[in-house]
């Protein structure tokens, strides 16, 4: 429970020099075929994601990607905070802010940084949270998505 947790960040070994340092992690071209396959895999029904002809006549003039499409772009993860703790790590969730939709034909550029690393000790032991922030924009600098991806490390022997 939150009120029983103690902040133990100071005791954790990780690379503090990378905190807040943003780097270019690459770019990816987006095709209509990719968006349509992704949308079918999710059982999407909106023609703006599935039908090139309908989408061309629609408000964006091209197929647009469903909101979470940025996850399948092959870009790098960015600086590694090298958290030296625990026996296992897992993807604990995402905090995401959406701006303009990603469209077929665009090239999406990504920049990433380690936004925060913090550790808490509570009833179930210590967990270390690493928050990596990635910002996605198109070739004209139009902002698409700001993503915080949260990775947790813990010691399952505790």
């Amino acid at each position: 429970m939150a009120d029983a947790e103690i902040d133990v960040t100071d005791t954790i070994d990780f690379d503090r020099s990378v905190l807040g340092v943003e780097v270019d992690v690459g770019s990816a071209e987006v095709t209509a075929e990719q968006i349509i396959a992704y949308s079918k895999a999710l059982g999407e029904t909106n023609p703006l994601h599935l039908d090139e002809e309908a989408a061309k006549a629609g408000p964006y003039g091209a197929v647009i990607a469903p909101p979470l499409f940025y996850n399948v772009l092959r870009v790098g993860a960015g600086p590694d905070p090298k958290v030296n703790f625990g026996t296992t790590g897992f993807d604990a969730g995402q905090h995401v802010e959406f701006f303009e939709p990603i469209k077929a034909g665009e090239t999406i550029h990504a920049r990433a940084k380690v936004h925060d690393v913090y550790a808490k000790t509570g009833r179930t032991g210590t967990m270390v949270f690493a928050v990596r922030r990635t910002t996605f924009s198109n070739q004209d600098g139009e902002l698409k998505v700001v993503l915080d991806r949260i990775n947790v490390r813990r010691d399952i022997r505790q």
Partner: protein
Amino acid sequence: MTQVYFEDVSMGDEIGPMIKNPTREQLATFMGVWGGGPSRFNSDEVARSEGLTGVILPGHMSMALLTQLLTEWKGPSGRLKSMEVNFRRYLQPGDTLALKGVITDTEVVDGENRVTLDVYIENQKGERAQQGTAVVILPSK
């Protein structure tokens, strides 16, 4: 698609459930777009070596399914502004996912009609595999 308006919604309103049954074929298509080598998401062998019973859905695939609850509900003139989702349990092809939401706040901020919701995915055992919050902007009448 019909349009829902800000004036039509209030705190406590429930949306959904939307039911999803992701298949192995859909997972394979999804992984074909994402790419990458053998993993717990595209190889039963790798998944079993990690103590799983077989392939699992990437967390962001399940979250993308949850997002559909909101994109279908908000209508063509609504906008999904933000989401915060915690991944609590993994989901597998063949699971039945019930996507649900409940409105926890409605307010006008900086001229935007903001609707805040709790959203979650319940599996067939009634467990919450993912849960979080979302903010949707709805048009006025």
